[in-house]
């Protein structure tokens, strides 16, 4: 067993266990912490693929910023078991149906998808920041700029809501 495989197994186990922890934990703060662990494990997978830029951006954006905001909100609301609202039955059914529908879509999508031959981790350099930047700003420049416009509009929207 190569060291790559060991690390992959450990990271995957951590990722799955913490992902389960997110949905199974009673305490919302613990859920968030599990989610952070999950994100860090997934970032580890990026490193295994030699996608260093993706790894670090994942850490900065998701674990460093978004989860902090999650934690922030949860801490301010101070949710705990005592004031947890009673879950209604129809909510459970709705959740089950929408979850099942998502699963169906995923299965249908994956069935038709052809898995491209993944190069071994050492050979790909696409994850390095230089190559990634070149790809983003040449072949994918239109989607990239469009998404930046999307972010800008979201930001303006947040400011407008905040000003009210």
């Amino acid at each position, binding site marked *: 067993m*190569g*060291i*790559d495989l060991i*690390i992959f197994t450990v990271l995957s186990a951590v990722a799955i266990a913490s992902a389960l922890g997110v949905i199974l934990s009673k305490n919302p*703060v613990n859920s968030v*912490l599990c989610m*952070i662990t999950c994100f860090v494990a997934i970032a580890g997978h990026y*490193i*295994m693929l*030699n996608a*260093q*830029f993706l*790894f*670090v*951006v994942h*850490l*900065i954006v998701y*674990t*460093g*910023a978004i989860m*902090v*905001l999650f*934690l*922030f909100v949860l*801490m*301010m609301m101070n949710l705990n078991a005592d004031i947890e609202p009673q879950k209604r039955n129809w909510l459970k059914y709705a959740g089950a149906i929408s979850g099942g529908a998502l699963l169906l879509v995923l299965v249908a999508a994956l069935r038709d998808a052809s898995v491209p031959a993944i190069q071994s*981790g*050492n050979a790909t350099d696409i994850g*390095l*920041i*230089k190559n990634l930047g070149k790809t983003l700003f040449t072949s994918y420049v239109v989607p990239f700029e469009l998404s930046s416009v999307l972010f800008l509009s979201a930001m303006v929207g947040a400011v407008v809501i905040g000003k009210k």
Partner: protein
Amino acid sequence: MDLMTSFDWSFVIEKLLLISAVLGLSLLIAMYSTWGERKVAAWIQDRRGPNRAGIFGLLQPLADGGKLFFKEEIIPSTANQFLFVLGPSMAMLTACLTSAVIPWGDVLYFGDRAVTLQIADVNIGVLWIMAVVGMGVYGIMIGGWASNNKFSLLAACRGASQVISYELPMGLALIALFMISGSLSLKDIVEQQRSGVWFVVLQPIGFLIFLICAFAECNRTPFDLPEAENELNGGYHLEYSSMKLGFYLFAEYINMFISSALMATLYFGGYSFPYMDSLGLSPNLVTILGICALFLKTFAFIFFFMWVRWTLPRFRYDQLMKLGWKVLIPLALLNMLITGAVILYRQNGFN
């Protein structure tokens, strides 16, 4: 990755030695920063500072550490036990992680073997530091929340929003730097400054923004809102005692040391010093002198941190946010724009 597949044991041992050296050194420097802080504070206030424990009070950090060790460990009964311990550990961990990508020196030669004095020369060096600094806020948040104390919680919220707010101008200031250097690797950045000028000459405004943000990220005065003694009874580490408190205090000083080293590396040439290639010395000697130069610059910045702390009063919270969002971010954006324009002009004129 190369490291995983080919088991070069001497490489592993070399890196392990380097890691322990850097860790030990940062702990030692953090220890003596507490002493230095008290000395600088005393001098600025016309006092003498600690001078009883050992010569010049040099044993004072040991006495302080011993005191912290022997204090009673208290975990409040209403606190979340696991998270209460996790908080200081996270703070310490993230503080130590940042030193991985800083080049502490050039190459040392032991016979045929060339040892790079950098733990990991990854091509995302600076982003790694940003990521770890962003994670560093968890130490404060978890500790503050788990204490189950409203002052700690307030401090944790302040710390989190402060770090997130100041990460933006910091990143924007760094982008302007990367536009000049064309690389995110700290080693490359230092090598470029070794052959050219220090980047502080090219990026004075960027450096100023980075400096201010570094103060905010380290929770140092004038931005030490998370531990404002007079409003929050000591902030997020209010409920902590003994070595867990020690971890928080230590993490703060390690952060200060690392950000000083980072500023020296990014803007003041790192381990390079003027005329280092024209002295005609042996490469090993030049490397050692380079390490000394880096530490000299780092200590100068640490002194600057302390000097500012004992000069400027604390900001009010709305002033802090206003400075971050309404002054520093526009300034950083402007700096980025001007840098880009100048680079474009120098590349192809007004065509």
